[in-house]
């Protein structure tokens, strides 16, 4: 196995995530897309970590940090989405246009 | 130099002159709201003390010496080469005196201001401090700081206490000036860092920068950046559009200061910085500037002729008169430059007086339309006399001051730019046309509008305002030597520097102007 496969997988996942952020209208779906991007990051980190044979396992540890922080991020994000939903009965990003973009 | 004089030289007189009005501004702001009657006396007192200090400066100024006097220098920030460096030569001395002289008059002419009086007088005093700072600063960054800071009080003076379209006029004034000065800031920084390449450390010090060889291309760019800024302020022909609006909308005192002093800052900057720092570019760009100056002279005069609003007429006459100043400067002859400087002072006095007079009649009738007047000489003989006197001075009738300046400018430019001089002399004729025609329509003949019949003639305060200006107009017209003696060495220094750094030769009477070409012939 070469590292290229992982690189490509990561890049694909990341692009998918970016695409999702740009086109999905539901805030929860956007949140999911961001999680995809973070998954791509984790794949890259772990793949390079093992490829480089890093004795400190920097890549693996970093991936763990990313997972932890991502969990916190989702917690906050969902809370905000719920808040929005309560106030407007919708979580559609397109309708967030009280202020012009 | 004897000991007392040297002690006097060590006294930081220039800092004091700059700080006095600023202190006055703070004092005015600190006055309690209910003691409104104290505002004018305090402001006036501080500006008169400033005038006194300026007179002391004049008395102890050594005539016939080139270079800067009363220099003060404190290193401010070594790594940037910034120092608090002040000094005056003959040119800046006259400008300082003009400023200090006009401000008390402008303050006294502001009694019609009734709203936010403290703010108004404080703004005027801060404005005076800024302008004085511009004229004495010898460090480019300090110069720029004063230059830019002075915009803020002027903006408020036009914008709060001005006429109908004050907000528009204030914004236009501010943005035009700021555009120029921003480019100048870029130029100043580039200049300082270019100097840094040669000296091993950057410097903003004007005197040190004189010793830096910039190279031709850099001189052109920097000349452009500086000239644009100064040209907007002067204003040189296509950059003048802010001026009529600002002049017309400003309150009387604001117009007096704007015309009397602020415009001079641009011309002063051209002389002080463009001519000395970028001599090669100056010599090469003389035709361009001279053309613009002549266009300004004629255009200003023609547009002034057709104005229906007397204040606008005076405003456009400024464009024309300042054209003479620019022509004199870029004639690059001793006579032309001296004439330019003297003309700056003259224009400050006569146009200042004209705006005062316009303000006085406006306070009575609340109209500036020439058509609303007519035959005023019968009800207001004193006013008519003063108007005629100042108009004649502005036209350049001997033996009034305008004659000296315009004559020297035309003489000087005839030496180096004969064609332009001839064209410019048309401006003198046109000046007579628009001012005397305006006089005729407003003052002679029978009274045409009934409302004018009961107008009161000038009161004591108004006479007191005009008297010093009239006296100075006469004095400078009959006996300009004291002023010329002080300007001459400074002018000569500038021309010497141009001759030294370029192959330009200052033409003089009796010597062929185009010597270099003559030598080049086989």
């Amino acid at each position: 196995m070469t590292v290229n496969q992982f690189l490509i997988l990561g890049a694909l996942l990341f692009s998918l995530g970016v695409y999702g952020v740009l086109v999905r209208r539901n805030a929860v779906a956007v949140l999911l897309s961001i999680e995809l991007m973070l998954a791509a990051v984790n794949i890259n980190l772990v793949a390079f970590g093992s490829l480089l044979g890093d004795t400190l396992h920097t890549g693996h540890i970093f991936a763990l940090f990313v997972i932890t922080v991502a969990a916190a991020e989702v917690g906050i994000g969902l809370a905000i989405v719920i808040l929005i939903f309560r106030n407007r009965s919708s979580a559609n990003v397109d309708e967030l246009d009280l202020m012009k973009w | 130099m004897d000991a007392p004089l040297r002690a006097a030289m060590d006294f930081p007189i220039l800092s004091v002159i700059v700080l006095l009005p600023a202190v006055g501004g703070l004092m005015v702001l600190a006055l309690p709201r209910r003691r409104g009657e104290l505002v004018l006396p305090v402001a006036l007192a501080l500006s008169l003390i400033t005038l006194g200090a300026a007179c002391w400066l004049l008395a102890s100024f050594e005539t016939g010496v080139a270079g800067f006097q009363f220099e003060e220098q404190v290193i401010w920030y070594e790594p940037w080469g910034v120092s608090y460096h002040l000094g005056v030569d003959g040119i800046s001395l006259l400008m300082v005196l003009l400023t200090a002289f006009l401000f008390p008059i402008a303050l006294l002419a502001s009694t019609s201001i009734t709203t936010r009086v403290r703010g108004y007088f404080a703004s005027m005093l801060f404005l005076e401090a800024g302008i004085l700072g511009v004229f004495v600063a010898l460090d480019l960054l300090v110069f720029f700081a004063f230059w830019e800071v002075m915009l803020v009080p002027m903006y408020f003076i036009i914008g709060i206490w001005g006429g109908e379209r004050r907000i528009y006029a204030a914004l236009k004034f501010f943005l035009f000036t700021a555009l120029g000065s921003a480019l100048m800031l870029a130029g100043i920084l580039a200049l300082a860092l270019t100097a840094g390449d040669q000296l091993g450390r950057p410097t903003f010090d004007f005197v040190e920068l004189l010793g830096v060889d910039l190279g031709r291309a850099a001189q052109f760019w920097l000349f452009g950046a500086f000239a644009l800024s100064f040209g907007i302020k002067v204003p040189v022909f296509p950059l003048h559009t802010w001026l009529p609006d600002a002049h017309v909308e400003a309150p009387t005192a604001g117009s007096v200061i704007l015309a009397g002093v602020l415009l001079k800052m641009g011309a002063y900057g051209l002389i002080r910085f463009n001519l000395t720092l970028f001599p090669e570019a100056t010599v090469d760009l003389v035709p361009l500037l001279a053309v613009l100056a002549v266009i300004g002279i004629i255009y200003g005069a023609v547009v002034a002729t057709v104005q229906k609003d007397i204040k606008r007429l005076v405003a456009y006459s400024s464009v024309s008169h300042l054209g003479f100043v620019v022509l004199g400067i870029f004639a690059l002859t001793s006579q032309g430059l001296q004439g330019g400087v003297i003309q700056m002072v003259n224009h400050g006095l006569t146009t200042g007086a004209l705006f005062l007079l316009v303000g006085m009649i406006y306070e009575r009738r609340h109209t500036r339309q020439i058509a609303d007047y007519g035959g005023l000489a019968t009800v207001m003989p004193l006013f008519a006399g003063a108007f005629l006197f100042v108009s004649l001075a502005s036209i350049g009738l001997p033996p009034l001051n305008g004659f000296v300046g315009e004559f020297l400018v035309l003489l000087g430019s005839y030496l180096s730019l004969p064609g332009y001089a001839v064209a410019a002399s048309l401006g003198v004729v046109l000046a007579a046309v628009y001012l005397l025609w305006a006089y005729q329509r407003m003052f002679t003949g029978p009274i045409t509008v009934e409302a004018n019949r009961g107008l009161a003639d000038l009161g004591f305060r108004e006479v007191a305002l005009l008297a010093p200006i009239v006296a100075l107009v006469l004095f400078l017209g009959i006996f300009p030597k004291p002023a010329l003696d002080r300007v001459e060495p400074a002018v000569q220094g500038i021309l010497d520097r141009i001759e030294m750094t370029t192959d330009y030769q200052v033409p003089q009477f009796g010597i062929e102007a185009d010597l270099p070409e003559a030598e080049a012939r086989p």
Partner: protein
Amino acid sequence: MNGSLTFLSVAPEIALAAAVVLLLLVEVTFKPRAWAWAVVAGAGLAAGTALSAWQWVAHRGADTGTFWNGMIAVDGFAALAGLLVFPLAGLGLMSAWRLAASQGRRGAEFIALVLLAAAGAHLMAAAADFIMLFIGLEVFSLSLYVLAGFTRERVDADEASLKYFLLGAFASAVFLYGVALVFAATGSTTFYGDGGIADYLAGTVIFRPGVLLAGLALLLVGLAFKVSAAPFHVWAPDVYQGAPGGVTGFLAAAAKVAGFAALARVLTAVLGARADDWVPAVAVLAAASVVVGTLLAIVQDDVKRLLAYSSVAHAGFILTALVAGRGGVGDMWFYLATYAVQVLGAFTVAAAVSGDRAGRSPLAHWAGLGRRAPWLAAAMTLMLLAMAGIPLTAGFAGKVAVFRAAIDAGYLWLVIVAVLATVAGLFFYLRVIVAMYLASPEEGASLPASPAVGWGARFVLAVAAAATLVFGIAPWPLLEVLRDALPL
């Protein structure tokens, strides 16, 4: 590196975290009055500031180092960031005090979030490893997302919060991907020391230069989002406008300080060896920011939105200093510190004028403020003139500093663009001044109740005005000091 020093290296963060825990515990246990919050928060921030000051005295210049296996750097840069961020958080709390006190028991959470954000911001500046930088970034950002929507019943604030969150999380992911690629290229996430990124890049042979460049670009994009540099600024106007008035000042000031601290360390110290790659990109970002920020600010009718676009332009000015690389870091700090104070002051006035819970602050609210509240108007005028770069204010000194740095680095074109933008910028700063002094309120316009200013806000304005004037008239001492605030 002895043991006590190891803990002292993160002492500011520990102090802040302790204050947060204490605050929340005291709150649920004793349900004290609001002044008790102030005591705890003040003690935490004072401790953080004092510890940063100690770090500054002991560790600026030569005597610097990294701790915890190269995770945390203690140097003049980190210490200065602490000296800036913690007092700024204190001022931000004072400015928002009325808002916090009006939130009932949730006020303690508000204060805790501000403290956490401050700790995260300092961690971003002190991080010597991308892992730490990421954690600091997230602690900081997550706190701000919540703060932006703190008045949860207001729809504007929700919207601001969600937009900030979505775009912020997106930017974090982009940043992380960049980190992963840099890790792939260099084999390390640590900045300094043997085998660190700086060490690797200083070497002659670079494997996978393409991956490194891609990573570098993504890093830059991610951080440009955080500092709202154009074209990654789209969140800033909405968030600044929607967030509660009392919060916006701290949000704007802290986001700039933290983001630029991280950016400056990553670019100048870590990637210093690859300066040729990133300097042109930074120059383009800077030019785009000043132009876009200025042009869009001109057409705004809401003061908070206008200040948001102006902050985009200011991000550009600060980036201008960074094209000079390490030589521009001191100038960047000067601009950043003075701007942070100005923007905090300006938003404090906005909160007083339009209400500290309200999001919007239309220009109509400002009409005739010069008569209604002369001191507020005067303070705002000073802040606006400083942001516009009028001499004798700190804004002018800052502009000269960053322009000088950029010209020195050979980027005259960038300075000319910035200078022209400065002039255009005068236009919208003057619009606000015109509204305050020259315009009178429209007939029948419904103005908010006469501006109420708490003592905290008054103090903030006094400090901001004093700092703006003092550092405008005599910037040299501060500039001199900031020359020591370099990253390792």
